[in-house]
């Protein structure tokens, strides 16, 4: 369901220009697609449920051409460089999470083909464990999306999707690169695409000694240091099978395995060697039925997340396993300008935790199940100039009352080139399994966080021949109550409580200017975000955080990128700015802003069915010494160079390609 409403977006009044803008480089690639370019490189914007039902909320997709430049990178690098979302990274290859619209890491939902894959234990997903090579589309959705995605979609959601095109023939790809600090990356893919069946296999392997030099601003005696004990190995496999049983029925089977072993760096503060192993298995099967005006999806999924943490000096050895089982049914019926959607979701979470310490082993397990019912309605009126939507969702758990969530919004085409959006929603975040059951300290009496969100925006689109301009400005305003915070208790250990209320508001702008002719295309992207996210309530007498910005949440972020394609050359320059972040909730200590630039370039060469590309990148071009999180140094200027090879044997085009998801 969720991500599976798959069409190429052709709703002209909705996202027409986004498609146009995004579409330009596509055409360039399409010109050479028979012989060259990347596996699955055609731009197909996969519509998801949000775009279908809640177009009144801000969303944008990172185009496949930009995505192709990040083929050897992780989601951490992609979002840091190509969005104004604040990415909280503990260092190259190290743990990274997001802060969207002033929320925390567990208030962003990471969705894999519409399924929430945030760890049920921690409530967040480590962006460094998402290799871009496995995905064909990365889209960002802003604001409260609980009516669609359930718990956790508060600040926003990030969609990771693959697409499947039937009847494409045989396609294979190998890409390998080498970089600074002993970094090696390799990924390969094989696509067999026939009329009725597709098999897509992707494998990646990354490893790095990751021993980068940095300047330690705290150690006056010895500022020049090399990061120690930060090496990592990451590998993964994604296998997908899509079967077109008949013109109305399609079955998708997906398997994603990911493994990462990381030593956690030692520094001036932490001298003991620690390491972390993550192993994730994700299985997803769905059956799609679409006939006339009716569409139905039945889907099931199983996720296993294993995390192991070792601190040899401290003799801590902890293993945490979570299992998630999802069953869902989602139905859509379209009657002229009316769209109706109803469905239900059942999710079972299981947690198993084993801690080995010197004084023995403690282990425990818990489970939680959740049942959700949802419904949505969309109206297209006035010659499709007006798009009105209303969605509701109610979830039930065995534990606490979950608030009713709702969303309503209007998208209105004021004028040919200008559209307005207005949306109100409520969203929630269920306490994570660790919040509820962690021993010691877990608090099973926690209430869910509740958020109330309004946003409004204007979208300006202008196209003239080969030039196009898209501008979007958005204002949002969100109140969150029952904000969950871990605090030491009088029992002698930390325990989560619903103590704070947070008010987040701000503005976002998006500007895309594109130019394209036969041999040359260029695009300028400029995103900014200004977020005030402050505490409005705290019951503690001596507290000095009211009205102050949340820690590690920048007020200003901005990102600009210039992408140029000329004949067989491509170049991408981007620069991202992150403002001051406070390290204390009374805002008396802070980290300095940083502005980091990266340069990527490539040259493509094609002959018959084979195409090759040599690519390279210079990261942190201006050699800035910076940290995102206090005392976790980031790498100085570093390099990567690589080669990718594609082989594509096109099938005879006997019928129209059916784009599906």
């Amino acid at each position, binding site marked *: 369901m969720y991500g599976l409403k798959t069409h190429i977006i052709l709703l002209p009044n909705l996202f027409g220009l986004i498609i146009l803008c995004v579409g330009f480089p596509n055409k360039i690639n399409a010109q050479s697609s028979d012989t060259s370019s990347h596996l699955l490189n055609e731009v197909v914007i996969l519509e998801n449920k949000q775009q279908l039902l809640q177009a009144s909320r801000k969303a944008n997709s990172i185009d496949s051409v930009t995505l192709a430049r990040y083929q050897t990178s992780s989601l951490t690098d992609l979002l840091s460089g190509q969005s104004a979302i604040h990415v909280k990274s503990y260092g190259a290859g190290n743990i990274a999470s997001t802060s969207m619209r002033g929320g925390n890491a567990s208030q962003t939902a990471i969705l894999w083909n519409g399924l929430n894959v945030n760890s049920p234990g921690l409530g967040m997903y480590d962006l460094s464990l998402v290799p871009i090579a496995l995905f064909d589309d990365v889209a960002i959705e802003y604001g409260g999306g609980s009516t669609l995605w359930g718990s956790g979609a508060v600040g926003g959601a990030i969609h990771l999707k693959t697409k499947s095109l039937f009847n494409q023939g045989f396609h294979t790809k190998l890409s390998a690169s080498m970089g600074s600090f002993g970094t090696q990356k390799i990924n390969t893919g094989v696509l067999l695409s026939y009329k009725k069946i597709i098999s897509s296999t992707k494998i990646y392997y990354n490893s790095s000694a990751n021993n980068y030099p940095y300047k330690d601003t705290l150690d006056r005696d010895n500022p020049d240091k090399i990061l120690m004990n930060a090496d990592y190995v990451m590998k993964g496999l994604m296998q997908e099978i899509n079967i077109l049983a008949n013109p109305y029925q399609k079955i998708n089977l997906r398997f994603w395995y990911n493994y990462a072993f990381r030593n956690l760096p030692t520094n001036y503060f932490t001298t003991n060697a620690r390491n972390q192993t993550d192993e994730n298995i994700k299985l997803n099967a769905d059956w799609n039925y679409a006939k006339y005006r009716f569409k139905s999806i039945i889907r099931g999924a199983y996720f296993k997340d294993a995390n192991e943490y070792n601190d040899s000096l401290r003799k801590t050895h902890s293993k945490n396993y979570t299992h998630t089982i999802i069953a869902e049914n989602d139905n859509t019926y379209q009657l002229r300008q009316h769209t109706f959607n109803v469905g239900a979701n059942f999710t079972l979470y299981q947690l198993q935790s084993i801690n080995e310490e010197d*004084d023995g082993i403690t282990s425990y397990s818990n489970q939680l199940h959740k049942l959700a019912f949802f419904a949505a309605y969309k109206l297209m009126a006035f010659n499709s100039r007006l798009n009105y939507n209303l969605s509701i969702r109610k979830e039930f758990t065995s534990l606490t009352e979950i608030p009713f969530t709702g969303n309503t919004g209007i998208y209105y085409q004021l004028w040919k080139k200008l559209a307005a959006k207005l949306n109100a929603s409520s969203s929630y975040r269920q306490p994570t399994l660790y919040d509820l059951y962690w021993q010691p300290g877990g608090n099973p009496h926690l209430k869910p966080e509740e958020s109330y969100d309004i946003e409004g925006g204007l979208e300006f689109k202008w196209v003239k021949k080969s030039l196009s301009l898209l501008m979007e400005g958005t204002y949002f305003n969100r109140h969150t109550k029952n904000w969950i915070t871990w605090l030491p208790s009088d029992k002698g250990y930390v325990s989560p409580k619903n103590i704070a209320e947070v008010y987040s508001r701000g503005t976002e702008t998006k500007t895309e200017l594109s130019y394209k002719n036969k041999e040359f295309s260029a695009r300028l992207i400029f995103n900014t975000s200004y977020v005030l996210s402050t505490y409005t309530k705290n019951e503690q007498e001596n507290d000095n955080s009211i009205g102050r910005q949340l820690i590690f949440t920048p007020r200003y972020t901005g990102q600009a990128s210039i992408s140029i394609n000329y004949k067989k050359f491509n170049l991408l320059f981007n620069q991202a700015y992150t403002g001051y972040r406070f390290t204390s909730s009374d805002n008396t200590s802070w980290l300095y802003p940083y502005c980091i630039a990266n340069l990527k370039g490539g040259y493509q060469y094609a002959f018959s069915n084979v195409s090759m590309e040599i690519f390279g990148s210079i990261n942190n071009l201006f050699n800035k010494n910076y940290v995102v999180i206090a005392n976790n140094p980031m790498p100085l200027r570093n390099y990567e160079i690589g080669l990718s090879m594609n082989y594509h044997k096109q099938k005879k085009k006997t019928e129209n390609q059916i784009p599906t998801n």
Partner: protein
Amino acid sequence: MVIYSKKMRLYISILIIVLFNSCVKDKPQDPKKTAVTVNSDYKVLIVNEGNFGWGSGTISLYDPTSGALVDDYYGQQNNGGSLGNVCQSITRHNSSYYIVVNNSNKIMVVNASDFVKTGTINGFNSPRYILPITYNKAYVSDLYANSIQVVDLNTNTISGSITCMNGTEGMILIYNKAFITNGNSEYCYVVNTATDVMMDSIHVGKGSSGICVDKNSKVWVLSSGNSASSQAGKLSRINPVTVQIEQSLNFNLGESPGKLCVNKTRDTLYYLNNGICQLQITSNSLPSNPLIYQGSKIYYGLGVNPKDYSIYVSDAIDYVQKSKIEIYKPDGTFITKFNAGIISNSFMFE
């Protein structure tokens, strides 16, 4: 960009107004850095742990006479340098202060007169407290090492170790015996400081940490208990000569008492248990109510000024902002309060 019509101009103007309204200046105001010099010989050093993993631990210097405060005394005296991560304790010995930096696994040595760094002792697992034994010898307790480290203060190196289960905490020295509490075991360990050999252990209950000596030269040990394993906290009075418990007072299950202190005349004990509790050493029972309730505060550090009996307590609040230090008279009357560093855990009165 191209502006087509008046209508368009209007829209653009609205857009700009919406986007650029009420932006706040990003650069925070630097705190006023007036070089505070505390000259009075009556001063208080406050140990601020800092946030585990990423925050800098600091030592604040407070002058009770003038109310002057130096936020980061070490940084001020050492050209902005940092002590490291998680300052656990400070101890004065000879003409130096020894600052135990837990997560950075080291002890910073600074000159007592000007707080300038003179050395570092490395090689610990997770050091907690340092106990000077002789002029050149000290013991260091450790949360994760299965031994007490013996340190040569002449060379600032570890010279030996005394096997002891991990979790060693507070220590005191009396009659050539070191009494060492342990947060993980149910025992307080006794080491012969002449031979550095473990000679005895005393059953004081789970989670002992606070330890002090009263005016009758009796050793008091506070154990916080463990609610998960249904073990209640306990306050034990030990005769250091016989190494026997003379008296034992039990807390209720679920209470987690901590931070044991003794006053100037060493006849009154103070500890934290849902507030500040006061106990005469002659008392046969624990007080049923705290002297000062903590209410919505989270009391974390405690100290009693040996000069004027005043009680210093820190409220760590949310653990990511400056702690509030409150000062009370021994009768519980509030005197004043001020902000120190992040997670203030103890006080040293000079």
